[in-house]
């Protein structure tokens, strides 16, 4: 074993599992990564990204100084590389950014500004960002990629039980008797969690039910695999509930004590037989019956899901159909049960918690509530906070297209990869007057920027990330930053002071923080659920699960033991809506999109990592029978077209894809799959239908 200058304990910057890492540092570089074996949530386990993928931190293309576009304000906005920018001092760049923002406020009103905060940044970065946007700019136009990710899980769970976080801790997976994994390719998207799930099956004899159109790796560990047609999730869960009620397997005492609206819901299930569901979903009725019995009769059963449930035009209904089933069987409120949306990003839970959403202050406190508003105005020493919920990610894009928004402030997001129907999104982007970017690399969105402010990744700053099971954990500065790159919240704090001055506002004194720990302390003073959490405490204990109202409180690994935040759990009557884009003779395949093990979202990080060597380009996963019928060979170059665009990729023949369905990863800027996706939104969650586009495939030269 090698000796190193120092080892720094921190939290992984990739998915929402929140693995603890020990970074070995030599000469200011991360030379290897291991995992502490005695620390939750990963207990020594890592995946390829955490173990090998943090080398992006040292990539030579890191932005080292502030940049300003050379041809600023000269007609049509076009994407440029580094050659399109000139280096600037922090003073010049921040003054220019402050000038643009204050001018927008003065001439067009604060709501002409759209802002994107980041699920990759810390809670402290988010807190300062939203404090600036709400308290100085005075708009609630703030959102982040949770909108494109678990928005429908949030909307559904808020409605059913009043809380949207994962209800149980990762450590509880050993208590499972039966569990459902649905719309989650867990071995690739949450690899470390998948090892605990596999362990539950192999070592503890737990029974796994996979409900997913694709033959994912976990289906090899499953007792049952319900391979339904994409987009027919509600039908599967409704039919399972029908079986539970018909065979009287429901948990009567739980329903009586803890839920409401059961009778209406029960009636709505009449006629929704497994046979009817079979005709919609393609899953044999007998399998649906077996799955329903297995879940209902279990002592402890949990559901884990990912984007397959939420990224849908009826994602809220998908979530509600699962919540209905859990309430029906009483599988909530004790270890080894629960409703568990697996959060995608390292801090997507925390970014939402810290107020990175258009309708809420930190701690999910409504911007429309006068008392809450007063509390924040007093603490922040400002007046006139906006009471109107702001626009969501895609609504901001719409507003940009209509000219209602003409200034964007983007911190650590990449909308030019992540938004659906990129062709349209790009047109909206091009119309903006000013784009200010805070990021570590010049990515596909930065290429459209006017002012680029160089920020720092996880290994170069202190702060907290909140993982998927609500565990607040520390990240610690381990290596120096290149050039003049600066911590995100410090950049925003400096910008806030300059905008405050330019707007002629009385100095609030609210942007004078000296450390991330001070930032956290202000937020925890405003959010009751964080009241007992401080950096010092996390340093001692390794991590604390919120809610944790006071320093003596141990934190809350599992929720809803006695009640739900909304009181009783609500059964919701659902229609089985099937509104996604359909295939046709011109577009005969259904395209599903998602992540692969070795890459991360828009690829800004992992495409600049050794990870890119093992998975360097986009593929189209196609069933062997489809490939044979079309005459495609492994690795053949093809064009994939939807009604919105065309991209080039290579055929990968695999039984993972069912017939008629192809899968493509979302990570490759050379084959940006969102050129193909459709901007069809769930009416409640405003999340687009990423998982279902009709495409045609043709050989390419």
């Amino acid at each position, binding site marked *: 074993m090698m000796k190193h200058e120092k080892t720094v304990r921190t939290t992984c910057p990739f998915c929402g599992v929140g693995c603890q890492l020990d970074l070995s540092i030599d000469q200011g570089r991360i*030379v290897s990564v291991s995992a502490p074996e005695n620390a939750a949530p990963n207990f*020594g*386990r890592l995946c*390829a990204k955490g*173990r090998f993928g943090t080398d992006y931190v040292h990539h030579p293309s890191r932005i080292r100084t502030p940049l300003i576009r050379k041809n600023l304000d000269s007609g049509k906005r076009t994407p440029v590389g580094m050659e399109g920018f000139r280096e600037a001092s922090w003073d010049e760049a921040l003054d220019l950014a402050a000038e643009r923002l204050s001018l927008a406020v003065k001439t067009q009103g604060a709501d002409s500004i759209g802002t994107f905060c980041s699920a990759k940044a810390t809670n402290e970065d988010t807190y300062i960002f939203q404090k600036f946007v709400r308290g100085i700019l005075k708009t609630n136009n703030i959102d982040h990629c949770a909108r494109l990710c678990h928005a429908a899980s949030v909307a559904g769970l808020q409605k059913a039980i009043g809380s949207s976080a994962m209800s149980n801790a990762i450590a509880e997976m050993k208590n499972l008797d039966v569990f459902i994994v649905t719309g989650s390719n867990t071995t690739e998207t949450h690899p470390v969690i998948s090892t605990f799930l596999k362990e539950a099956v192999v070592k503890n004899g737990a029974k796994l039910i996979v409900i997913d159109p694709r033959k994912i790796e976990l289906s090899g560990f499953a007792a049952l695999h319900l391979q339904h047609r994409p987009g027919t999730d509600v039908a599967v869960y409704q039919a399972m509930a029908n079986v539970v009620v018909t065979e009287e397997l429901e948990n009567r005492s739980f329903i009586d004590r803890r839920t409401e609206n059961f009778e209406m819901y029960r009636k709505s299930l009449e006629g929704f037989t497994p046979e009817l569901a079979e005709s919609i979903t393609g899953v044999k009725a007998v399998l649906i019956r077996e799955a329903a019995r297995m879940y209902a009769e279990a002592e402890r059963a949990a559901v884990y899901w990912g984007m397959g449930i939420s990224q849908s035009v009826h994602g809220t209904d998908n979530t509600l159909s699962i919540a209905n089933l859990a309430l029906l069987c009483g599988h909530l409120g004790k270890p080894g049960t629960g409703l568990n949306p697996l959060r995608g990003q390292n801090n997507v839970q925390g970014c939402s918690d810290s107020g990175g959403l258009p309708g809420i202050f930190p701690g999910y406190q409504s911007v429309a509530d006068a008392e809450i508003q007063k509390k924040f105005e007093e603490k922040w020493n400002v007046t006139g906070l906006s009471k109107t919920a702001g626009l969501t990610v895609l609504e901001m894009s719409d507003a940009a297209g209509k000219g209602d928004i003409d200034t964007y402030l983007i911190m650590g997001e990449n909308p030019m990869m992540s938004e659906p129907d990129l062709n349209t999104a790009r047109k909206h982007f091009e119309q903006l007057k000013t784009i200010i970017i805070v990021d570590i690399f010049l990515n596909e969105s930065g290429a459209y920027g006017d002012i680029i402010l160089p920020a720092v990744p996880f290994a170069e700053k202190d702060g907290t990330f909140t993982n998927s099971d609500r565990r607040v954990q520390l990240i610690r500065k381990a290596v120096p930053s290149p050039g003049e790159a600066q911590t995100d919240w410090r950049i925003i704090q400096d910008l806030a002071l300059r905008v405050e001055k330019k707007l002629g506002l009385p100095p609030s004194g609210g942007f004078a923080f000296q450390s991330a720990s001070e930032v956290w302390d202000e937020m925890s003073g405003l959010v009751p659920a964080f009241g007992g959490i401080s950096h010092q405490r996390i340093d001692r204990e390794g991590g604390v699960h919120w809610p944790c109202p006071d320093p003596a409180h141990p934190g809350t690994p599992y929720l809803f033991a006695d009640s739900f935040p909304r009181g009783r759990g609500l059964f919701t009557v659902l229609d089985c809506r099937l509104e996604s884009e359909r295939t046709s003779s011109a577009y005969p395949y259904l395209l599903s999109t998602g992540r692969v093990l070795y890459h991360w979202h828009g690829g800004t990080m992992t495409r600049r990592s050794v990870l890119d060597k*093992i998975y360097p380009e986009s593929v189209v996963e196609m069933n062997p029978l489809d490939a044979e019928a079309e005459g495609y060979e492994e690795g053949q170059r093809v064009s994939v077209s939807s009604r919105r665009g065309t991209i080039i990729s290579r055929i990968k023949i695999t039984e993972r894809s069912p017939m008629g369905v192809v899968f493509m990863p979302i990570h490759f800027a050379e084959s940006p799959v969102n050129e193909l996706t459709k901007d069809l939104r769930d009416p409640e969650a405003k999340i687009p239908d990423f998982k279902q586009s009709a495409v045609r495939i043709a050989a390419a030269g």
Partner: protein
Amino acid sequence: MSTEKITITVDGKKITVPSGVTILQAAESAGITIPTICFHEQLTPPGLCRQCVVEVEGARRLQPSCISSVREGMVVKTDSEKVRRVRRTNLEMLSAVTDLSESPEIVRQMKQLDADEERFAASPRGSLKDDNPFYIRDYTKCILCMRCVQVCSSDIQFSYALAAGGRGFDSRIATFYNKDLPDTTCVFCGNCIQVCPTGALKAKTEGNSTGVQHDEA
């Protein structure tokens, strides 16, 4: 583990432990350290390296303490001359065929037992495999403790990419059909690196190996 308590004697000391624990665990609870190599807290003990052997009164052979359960009235010697000789010979054989330069724990045990690394003249076995972007497998340093195989299979990762191959002196860690790792079920979690006690498995960014270089942007 049962709640029933039993009493055993270790190195002349009477200790009371729950029935069902191993001799290694029992000794540890009394502050007596038995040296180990292949044993790892998180893994099923394979009982392979035999460095943890102890003398149990009445037993015909030395017992591997990591996999032997305690019995009422058992009398154990963890550091007798017989035990020390076996451990020393074990290490001398290991050092004859293995590069132990990155195995500080084994080197420490050799010093403690005054082991003679020249005792058995042999040449190192194994070779260095460099077949993927992430880590090397330097089998000149491998002592066949099997931790990596256990991690890769049913103890942690359930990927089943690494396996034991060959027999006797030709035993080695292998992949199915000796395929390169990228062509196996390996997911490059590196959890095998985490438990390797000898530096045989190592991230390429470590030390002076083939070090990963970034592609220029």
